[in-house]
């Protein structure tokens, strides 16, 4: 259904779930299903699923003050040539790191945000004491759309 902006956006699809890691597959499945209706190709979809998975895993691991009784919400906006996914948690927020570089290959962790930035076309982080929202965007290259340089920022919700 178009929303009247001329871009052919389909109504947002939301998924709210308890912060358990076994929900990650459902998140990926939802995003994959929506992505299949866009012009994203197979590789673009796989890359975006990775970015979304990392954002959702981050919410589960770090944005869930009540453990697996905490709620995480995923909101998906589909366009014919793009997919935008917001991952919202109600954690205590975090300081957005000053660097997005991939850590050394033998580092024990720290790859989540670098993977998001490498595999989505745009990454925005809004984090406060009330929670964190990570917004990820992927554009279909075949559409001729201009790539948006990955970025991230900290802002109040």
């Amino acid at each position, binding site marked *: 259904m178009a929303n009247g902006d001329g871009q052919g956006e389909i109504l947002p699809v939301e998924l709210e779930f308890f912060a*358990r*890691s*076994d*929900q*990650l*597959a*459902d998140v*990926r*499945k939802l995003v994959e299903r929506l992505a299949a209706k866009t012009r994203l190709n197979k*590789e673009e979809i*796989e*890359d975006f*699923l*990775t970015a979304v*998975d*990392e954002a959702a*895993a981050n919410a*589960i*691991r770090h944005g869930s003050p009540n453990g697996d009784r905490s709620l995480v919400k995923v909101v998906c906006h589909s366009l014919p040539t793009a997919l935008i996914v917001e991952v919202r948690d109600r954690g205590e927020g975090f300081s957005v790191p000053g660097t997005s570089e*991939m850590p*050394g*290959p*033998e*580092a*024990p*962790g720290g*790859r*989540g945000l*670098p*993977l998001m930035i*490498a*595999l989505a076309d745009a990454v925005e982080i809004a984090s406060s004491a009330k929670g964190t929202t990570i917004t990820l965007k992927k554009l279909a290259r075949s559409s001729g759309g201009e790539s948006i340089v990955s970025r991230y920022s900290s802002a109040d919700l």
Partner: protein
Amino acid sequence: MNEENVLLVHNYNHNGVPVVAAQGDVDLCTQDILRKALINSCKERSEPGKVAVDMREVPFIDSAGLALLVEIRKNYLDTCQLALIISARSQPERVLKLGRFDTFLEVCYTPDELVNSSAPVSA
């Protein structure tokens, strides 16, 4: 666990190299299944040598899965030379390259490549 998010593992031996074959997504939820299988294989080695992870049936791996590979490599450095068998042009191949895992782990595309090759980087 979500019934559709199951990681299956089984073991086989390819010309003397023990291989842990995984089938399914390796993520924050399922990585512990692969961890246990890899620890078992590493502990079972009677002398130092390769242990391979056959990921050709793994369509997806995330940073939790990557961290697991680093953990196993670090904890069994003296006895197990970890190697990966992956599919070309797959999500795991791209993610492993982004993490530069090909610089410190042996990465192959077929089990036959394991036999005559050595790890690319010293410990």
